[in-house]
């Protein structure tokens, strides 16, 4: 399969007519991650309807989020925004007593220019609960970028120094998480296992087990994770001081990275993301190299993981995959899957920050060269209609896409995997590489199981679109 290769990645930009989740969806995972938070989405019925349906059963579990639903009086400024928000936030304080209220600004608050950033500090002082403002709306952002806007706002709230001892203990949540209830002395003794390096804070919201896994992975190299943005609780946000090193775990966190560099004067470690064993190894190696540490046993560790994936790799080797693009994980996933032996003609992506994703893009290029496959075409702001025409032409073995297109494509005999699952599954680190392949191969395994039935095209010929 050696076709004439362009020597650099090819970037295109289309119309932006694509399907994705509204960024306010980040409350679904962030309220679960930050256990003492309450998310208030200040928007309309449209926003509420989306959240209610997108979150499915989670909605019934008394979520710590709600809509501040704007009514006509709010739009025409007959009602006083400050008084209205105060009323609702007091109600939240009374019923839930959270440690932080996060206001999610929406399209409507943008258009009517509701000054959330101005109102928040005043109200915060009045009711005594921190209020963090994140403008995660559909005018400016796509899906996972919602988390980016929230974390960028949270970055400003990380303490710069903690004097009080009790509070210091509380901030040290990561260590506590790792010490699994062992005694103080033992833990203290353990700290000698770390290399002496400047403090490192990681950013990106991951489920707690994955946080533990990645932290332990770095610990094996003698690297200590001083904190994580976000932490399990708002009151445990990590300390950030000038000169601290920070590193991202997800590709959609470019605003957070910028906020950490510009406003908190931290140094960003630009690495590929720890998705897939190749990505995880490159991520650790990059962090090690910044701290002048020679990584130990990484090559073997990676090799073992690859070996354990062989049953899945057999299924996908030589197959092609097409990313329609909706969650910004696309480049990292494509890079991993190309390393797995797949080809990838197109990577659709909502937004491409070539600086923040620089190391990931370089690894993608290198992977393609090493695997001898053509470089994918990266399509920013894709046009779903055009993409579907290209899918008909290319007939890829698998299309990673949103739910709006999955069933119609399946009915036309094209295998699909629902992209949103990659955002909710555990996909980071060595340990979870299998989970990614479990997702990727599921449609292939299912369709393999059914292949003799002769039912792969389930629409009449004329119904192409």
């Amino acid at each position, binding site marked *: 399969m050696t076709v004439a290769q362009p020597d650099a990645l090819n970037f295109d930009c289309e119309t*932006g*007519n*694509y*399907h*994705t*989740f*509204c*960024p306010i969806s980040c409350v679904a995972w962030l309220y679960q991650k930050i256990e003492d938070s309450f998310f208030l989405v*200040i928007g*309309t*019925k*449209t926003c*509420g*309807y*989306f959240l*209610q*349906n*997108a979150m499915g059963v989670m*909605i*019934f579990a008394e*979520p710590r989020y*709600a*809509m*501040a*639903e*704007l*009514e*006509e009086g*709010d739009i025409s400024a007959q*009602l006083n925004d400050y008084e*209205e*928000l105060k009323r*609702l936030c007091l*109600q*939240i304080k009374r019923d839930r007593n959270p440690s932080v209220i996060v206001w999610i600004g929406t*399209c*409507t608050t*943008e*258009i*009517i220019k509701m000054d959330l950033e101005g109102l928040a500090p005043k109200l915060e002082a009045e009711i005594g609960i921190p209020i963090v403002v994140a403008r995660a*709306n*559909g*005018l*400016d952002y*796509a*899906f996972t970028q919602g988390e980016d806007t929230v974390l960028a706002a949270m970055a400003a709230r990380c303490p710069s120094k903690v004097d009080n001892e009790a509070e210091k203990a509380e901030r040290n949540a990561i260590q506590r998480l790792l010490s699994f209830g062992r005694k103080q002395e033992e833990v203290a003794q353990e700290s000698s296992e770390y290399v002496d390096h400047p403090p490192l804070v990681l950013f990106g919201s991951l489920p707690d087990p994955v946080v533990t896994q990645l932290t332990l992975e770095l610990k094996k190299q003698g690297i200590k994770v001083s904190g994580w943005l976000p932490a399990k609780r708002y009151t445990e946000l990590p300390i950030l001081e000038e000169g601290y090193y920070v590193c991202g775990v997800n590709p959609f966190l470019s605003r957070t990275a910028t906020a950490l560099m510009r406003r908190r004067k931290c140094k960003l470690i630009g690495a590929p993301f720890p998705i897939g064993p190749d990505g995880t190894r490159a991520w650790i190696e990059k962090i090690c190299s910044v701290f002048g540490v020679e990584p130990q046993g990484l090559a073997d560790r990676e090799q073992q993981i690859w070996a354990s994936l062989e049953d899945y790799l057999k299924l996908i080797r030589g197959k092609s995959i097409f990313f329609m693009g909706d969650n910004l994980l696309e480049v990292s996933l494509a890079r991993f899957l190309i390393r797995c032996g797949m080809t990838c003609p197109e990577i659709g992506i909502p937004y491409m920050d070539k600086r923040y994703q620089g190391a990931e893009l370089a690894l993608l290029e290198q992977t393609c060269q090493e695997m001898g496959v053509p470089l994918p075409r990266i399509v920013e702001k894709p046009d779903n*209609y055009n993409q*579907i025409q290209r899918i008909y032409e290319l007939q890829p073995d698998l299309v990673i896409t*949103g*739910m*709006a*297109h*999955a*069933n*119609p494509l399946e*009915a036309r005999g094209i295998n699909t995997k629902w992209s949103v699952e990659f955002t909710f599954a555990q996909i980071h680190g060595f340990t979870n590489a299998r989970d990614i392949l479990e997702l990727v191969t599921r449609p292939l395994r299912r369709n393999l199981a059914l292949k003799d039935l002769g039912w792969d095209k*389930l*629409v009449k010929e004329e*119904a192409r*679109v």
Partner: protein
Amino acid sequence: MKLAYWMYAGPAHIGTLRIASSFKNVHAIMHAPLGDDYFNVMRSMLERERDFTPVTASIVDRNVLARGSQEKVVDNITRKDREEHPDLIVLTPTCTSSILQEDLQNFVDRAQIEVQGDVLLADVNHYRVNELQAADRTLAQIVQFYIEKARKKGELPQGKTETPSVNILGITTLGFHNQHDCRELRQLMADLGIEVNTVIPAGATVHELKTLPRAWFNLVPYREVGLMAAEYLKTEFAMPYVDITPMGVVETARCIRAIQKLLNAQGAAVDYENFIDTQTRFVSQAAWFSRSIDCQNLTGKRAVVFGDNTHAAAMTKVLAREMGIHVVLSGTYCKYDADWFREQVSEYCDEVLISDDNAAIGDAIARLEPAAIFGTQMERHVGKRLDIPCGVIAAPIHIQNFPVGYRPFLGYEGANQIVDLVYNSFTLGMEDHLLEIFGGHDTKEVITKSVSADSDLNWTREAQAELNKVPGFVRGKVKRNTEKFARDRNLSEITIEVLYAAKEAIGA
């Protein structure tokens, strides 16, 4: 501003999209920010739709805010016209367009010059109407548009069909069991010897709309969608309509009799009494069920009903009138049409609740402790928490409420389905209680049947054990009554003595 966790009816544009995507070859273009095309996900998921949902967005982003969206909207309309040649493109405003106040009608007029198909601006305002009202309006708007168009071109067919015929109005995509209801209604019409002239909007083309006046009458099975179109056709063509929902045996008969009257007034000379009688007594199982011992055992059991106007009202009547069940509360979230609901159900229930606040309904259920609930997915979850079985009878609904098997709610087969739903809900609950009485379950913690807080009172171990002996279905009530008794007397601990004192005092 309103603090809201859950909503029963969606935003207006959802209603318009449901109508547009129900028709064949009609495309909707939403004027909306990125992310508001979630409708496509719902349709593709819930209806398990094989075809691409004919809805796209003309994206409102920063550039649009700065420069206006005229070019973009017009381009998107002409592009879609070129790509897919829809008969009609419906430009659909959202909450965002409602506040941008751009002249969308002007964009439509501009685009119309350049395209082959028709272009319409849905006349819905996010802040004034909800999903259901918007669907009703959009359907009427499209009907009116094509009637007027045909009239102008002199293409309006004259006269009625030779034999009695009907239009069925208001069957839509994402409607609760609508596809099954539609098949059942077609069957019913066939049994009655009535030709189905057209069904709208589901599966219809806009070209069919001009033939609407050829039918002898219109049937509007659901209260929420179709009435405006029926009213319009009545004013324009003096077409009568029947708006009795044929749900349950009694209402189905009433609906058929209304049809009979309309047809006979137009000279049909039909008599459906025999048909009604045979269906009721021998074909449908519902009437026989109400006479059977099973149903006898349900007599006086307490139920709460909540849903949209159509289903909550019909269900209330079925339970009270056809099964002898005691409906302690009947409610609707269709606040805009509350008077109708009250009038329909008042004589069949103790209490009427008009609210779209899910906490109000949850609290009412906790307070009333019915043996079964008939409501939406939200009530099903309330029931789960309180250990009360729930049959789902109305939207909002989940994927399991889009069954592949044949499950109408309307007509005689619908009545059978309702029997199963009701009977299964109640027996499931009974079985649970019996199991508990005979100790079939592991000892469980007592669940307080109030949605909010745990009790602040101390139960001694003996009292707790005694309480656990009380059968499950009344345990919550005994517990609460005892606690109230204790609180009234300032007792902080509940002993066996207090438990029995309470029982004697208030018959707990």
